[in-house]
């Protein structure tokens, strides 16, 4: 504290104040006009990216969001629908019949129709087995 007071006293002495006035009285330098115009250009260049950023922020980002939402809506609305096989329309019955045929074919093998398979499972008894030999 005492040291600080001493420093304060010395700083306020006549000689120190004279030096202070001398420093204060030194002439001012002003930068040139070309310096200033160069600075203006740099400031404008600094300001431009900011505007581009705003444009991006306020226009492009919502546009991208809307685009994504629209794409999602299209996917939901126009998603591929599996054929309805449980209904009673003609198309549904045709599809069901076709699928049955395919299933039967995979079980019984090629060449036998549904009707043939039924007949084969219940053969008509032949009265005279030799009659059959006539066919040869």
């Amino acid at each position, binding site marked *: 504290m005492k*040291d*600080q007071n001493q*420093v*304060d006293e*010395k*700083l306020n*002495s*006549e*000689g*120190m*104040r*004279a*030096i*202070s006035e*001398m*420093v*204060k*009285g*030194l*002439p*001012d*330098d*002003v*930068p*040139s006009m070309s*310096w*200033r115009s*160069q*600075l*203006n250009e*740099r*400031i*404008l260049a*600094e*300001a431009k990216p*900011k505007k581009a950023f705003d444009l991006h922020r306020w226009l492009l980002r919502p546009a991208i969001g809307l685009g994504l939402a629209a794409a999602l809506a299209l996917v939901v609305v126009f998603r591929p629908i599996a054929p309805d096989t449980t209904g009673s329309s003609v198309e549904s019955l045709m599809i069901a019949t076709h699928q049955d045929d395919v299933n039967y074919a995979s079980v019984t093998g090629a060449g036998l129709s549904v009707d043939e398979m039924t007949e084969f499972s219940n053969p008509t008894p032949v009265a005279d087995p030799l009659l059959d030999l006539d066919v040869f």
Partner: protein
Amino acid sequence: MEAGAEEALIERCRRQDVEAFGKFVDAYQARVYGFVKRMVSNADEAADVTQEVFIRAFQSFTRFDGRSSVRTWLFRIANNLCIDRSRRLGRTPKAIGFGSDYEDGEEMEVSDSRWQPESLALDAELIQVVELGIAEMSEKLRMVLLLHDREEMSYEEIAETLSVPVGTVKSRLFLARAHLQSVVKRYMTEGGNA
């Protein structure tokens, strides 16, 4: 500039208003340039550094919170850029600094009859002597001297700008002025009045 007008200008600068920032540059360019020129001792480099000061100020105005005055904030940027430049160039502090003969200040007291402050007039030659005396100082002393005696900042503002205690500011100011006293005295006894 009036306080209200300056507040309004600062608010516009915060919003990155180029026109307002131009007015801000008008208000401070000479002072910042003068400070930087004396810190870097080269007019071309000073012009470059001063431009960088204002570009940094423009970039960071959005973060200026107003806790310190805009002048303190601006000179802190200038000061930091001068220090950065000095470090980049690897320049060491010059001979006049801490630990010099003026440390205790006793021998610089104004008892010398040749030292007559009231008769000092700033002619061109004396201005050059004083400028050279300022250029000889260490950066730390020079900063404090310029901020206090040129920019009329308070001890507290300088302490905040340089992030040092107020006591350190005062002792640096004392050393800086003491050095200039010795330079001017030498000039008067050996050169100017001879």
